[in-house]
């Protein structure tokens, strides 16, 4: 797992090294993004096993896409999330399951949660179910901004939209989500 390459190598340099045969360089990219990518996918799929499988598949698909592109890789992170988004959308097409308490991972691991975290597991499920009812682009935005904690600029880069447009989408997404969750809380 160790590599002689320092972590400050850029994504593009690591891709170039991988293209030249240094597969460990791709391992460094994997280490760099796997946790955030898993969280992104889990936020939308709400299934640990599926999320792990899709995370692995994303890294392989990204390699398949970029390996012959020479030095033309300008934003590996954007490619990664774009492909993950497409895989999640394909996954939704094949199976739509509403998350239930029975098939989620224990989210708190028994540790007491800070006050600003949704402590109630049922509320977390409601949140994720509500996110799943948004359009794919809004799901992606909510997940990147509030699940992964990316800034407006980073999120706009990944989603390949202008930042102004992203702000409009964010406002719309939050309003919709708030409305959906309020309805769910009322009904339950």
């Amino acid at each position, binding site marked *: 797992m160790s590599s002689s390459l320092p972590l400050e190598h850029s994504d593009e340099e690591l891709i170039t090294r991988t293209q030249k045969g240094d597969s460990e360089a791709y391992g460094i990219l994997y280490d760099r993004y796997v946790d955030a990518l898993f969280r992104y996918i889990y936020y939308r799929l709400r299934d640990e096993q599926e999320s792990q499988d899709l995370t692995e598949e994303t*890294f392989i698909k990204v390699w398949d896409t970029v390996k012959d592109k020479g030095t033309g890789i300008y934003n590996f992170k954007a490619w990664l999330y774009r492909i993950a988004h497409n895989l999640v959308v394909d996954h939704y097409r094949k199976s739509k399951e509403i998350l239930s308490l029975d098939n989620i991972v224990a989210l708190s691991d028994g540790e007491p949660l800070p006050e600003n975290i949704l402590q109630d597991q049922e509320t977390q499920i409601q949140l994720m179910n509500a996110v799943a009812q948004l359009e794919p682009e809004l799901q992606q935005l909510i997940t990147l901004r509030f699940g992964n904690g990316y800034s407006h600029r980073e999120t706009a880069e990944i989603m390949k939209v202008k930042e102004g*447009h992203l702000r409009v989408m964010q406002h719309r997404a939050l309003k919709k989500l708030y409305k959906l969750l309020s309805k769910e809380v009322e009904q339950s």
Partner: protein
Amino acid sequence: MSDEVVNVLAEALEAIEKGNLTPSECLERYPEHRDELRDLLYFAVTIKGTHLPAIDPEFRSAARSRIIQAVTVPKPRTLPETLLHIWNTYIWVSFTRRPVLSYAVVVALILIMASVGTVYASTSALPGDSLYSVKTSVEDARLWFTSDDQQVELYLQFTNERIREIKALMEGGRYENIPQAVERFENQVKEATDKEPEESRNGPRLVSVKMEAFSNHKDALNNLMITAPDQAKPALAHAIAVSDQAQHKLSDNLARSTPEIPPTQTETPASAPAALTPTLPSAPVVVPTQTPTSTQTATPTATPSRTSQPTRTAIPTATPSQTPEPTNTPTPIENPSQTPSSTAIPSQTPQPTQTVTPSVTPTVLPTATETVTPIPPTNTPTPSPTSTTVNPEACNGVLGAITVGSLRVPPGATCTLDGTIVEGNAVVEESGALIAYSARIDGNLDAQKSASVELLSGTEVNGNIQILLSGPVRIISIYAGRNLRLEGNSQGHEISSSWIIGNVDIVQNTGGVSISNNTINGNLACTGNIPLPTGDNNNVGGNATGQCALLR
């Protein structure tokens, strides 16, 4: 919602994320928006803290090893390395024993080996390799020296080689080179199909050989399609369609010229897409057999013409006619595996028992004459249905792997095609929505004032695609056999990872258009879009102009 509130919300969130302000300080800063902001701000802060699990460490480590293995590619020996190996092993040894004679022999050998070696090395070349042009030249030369009688078999041999190339490109992950192999495959299948009239003395035997070859091609391509990534699906789907059409053409020719010889294989088109959707329950092919007893002639409606565009005739809109009790009414097949309350795929609504059966003549959209078409489409513009009558299938719900004559999405309906084949045209009417996964539309696709159009995952449209004055458009990983036009649409659009044979025109759309990773044989022209289209990595055979000039 005002722009100001949108920006204030975004700025407030950024300030909170950076730790510069608290939520209540933000609200104090913008008192005029306090009411509108309060709930959303606190809500956003709350959901930001949602706890998410970490990836399992064991899985993380095991996946890392698998991924590193997947990206490790053994370096193949290049031609110079091969020649060097031969030199070191065989030539240099004899050179050191008889130097004078060896010099002359060696020089001659080098010259011969260079040319033979080049030709030899080219036999395994793939599209995109520097020696591929040598390979195709050798093939053309062989045809030149072959009699007409034997050319058919040679063409079939070459089509087998194309399949082998496609397979090798798939294994090597070189998906962007697959269209080149498919294009040559299509030309050679056409030559093999058209050569040697069936009534000649070799006719029946050659027909049988051709049928078998095309069937084998189709099987091999269908197998590749099962594991193909989205990027490769459009090209593979087109190759399958080419084999399919060749088989049909042979059957039709045979039926006309030698009716006493039955075709060696018949296959319903629905079997091809069914292989693409293994998770669906198998659906019977719906073949409407009724013929309308009273029909009305469709009346064309005029569309406004622009000064910069040639005058267009709209797709004739059908006038429905009443029919007596149908004996076989095609209805959307309900997919029992889907959750009824899901929002991505709408719930089923039962179809009325009356069948709308207008007669509609498919109309081909003319291409814009002011743009250059370097590779004009060669296919017949108006496909004729072979085994079904032209009945516009009114779709509201999900259609699975069935074949319909043509398709109509009525106003307000949402139609999902999953492996469906539409042998004629498809029309999406006002406020209708169309989502297509791995579907095939042999005619044109026309959507005007529709809610949205999504063409995804290996969908193939062999005619023109025209989407006007509609909502969001997503075109991802499809094959388009002719032109694509998006005009006056709103709310954001995406065209990616697709192969478009004709021209692409993106005109006066709003909400943003993203155009990336496409192969466009014709031109890419963009004008009047707000904001400017974005994207990159498009392989454009013709010209990229206007707002899309830099999107190559």
